[in-house]
């Protein structure tokens, strides 16, 4: 069976990362979304955020679990 759009491994990876956010820091998708929205509001007071490209993940390295949020900034005209 061929995957409908893009490779199925990318879908797997994306789903897994999403699941692990919840598993690792016990936040529901709704809570995660409102965290993102509130961070966006605060940041938007100071910089222009490209809100289509926001990425959030919970990463772990060397025993430290970290919430990593990536808010790309629009270039000033």
């Amino acid at each position: 069976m061929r995957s409908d759009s893009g490779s199925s491994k990318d879908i797997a990876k994306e789903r897994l990362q999403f699941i692990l956010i919840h598993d690792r820091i016990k936040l529901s998708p709704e809570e995660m979304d409102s965290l993102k929205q509130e961070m966006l509001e605060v940041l938007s007071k100071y910089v222009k955020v490209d809100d289509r490209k926001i990425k959030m993940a919970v990463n772990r390295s060397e025993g430290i679990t970290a919430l990593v949020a990536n808010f790309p900034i629009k270039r000033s005209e």
Partner: protein
Amino acid sequence: MAGKVIVVTSGKGGVGKTTTTANIGTALAMMDKRVCLIDADIGLRNLDVVMGLENRIVYDLVDVVEGNCRLEQALIRDKRQHNLFLLPAAQTRDKNAVTPYQMKELTDRLKEEMDYVLVDSPAGIEQGFKNAIAGADLAIIVTTPEVSAVRDADRVIGLLETEGLKNPEVVINRLRPDMVEKGDMMDISDMIEILAINLLGVVPEDENIVISTNRGEPVVLRNGNSRAGTAFLNIARRINGEELPLMNLEKETLLKKFKRIVGLS
């Protein structure tokens, strides 16, 4: 002599913990190490069957813990590798028959006699898992390239850290290079990036594993040149301190072979 106690665990069932334990243990024994395998899956023992030693069980782990026999009486010496031993699980008891404290005492005693003590953990994260990790110095997490297995592996890594077992290492089992190439299976770097732990080895899917299990002979013994056999032998060498690159998992297609021969790649 103080050996090392290594627990093989995964969270999810059916990813290949028992096969991994049997093969790494046999491979280490083939390298002239003294090895004891412990089946910690009380009530659902299987390591004896994978090793082909099921007809030789007299006493088991629970008998040892309860003092029904001496430890030496319960150890089954492997018929092919004389420095390899199995301590089977009890089949008619349940996981609550043993405590983590008793397991630690047992592995502490065994590692005085052995270079390596490998504990095959049951699936799950409850009492049986806690027993299995109690005396471990190192944890090997077995996973497969599936969302559910990696998710459970992640959970187990978190639990091991809480229990003070830092720096577990992962074995990625049943990788299918053809599917990875098509983009239909997560690749090694995807999984390592997500789990953020050291990679101990990658074992490709291999029908020789089924054949070996049918016969009760670990693949490293029966067919050490097979893809899975080579992978497990490499993992054992890494555990023993050697630095080895990952084996080449790609199947050489005719086109690639042609390109290589005419010097195009």
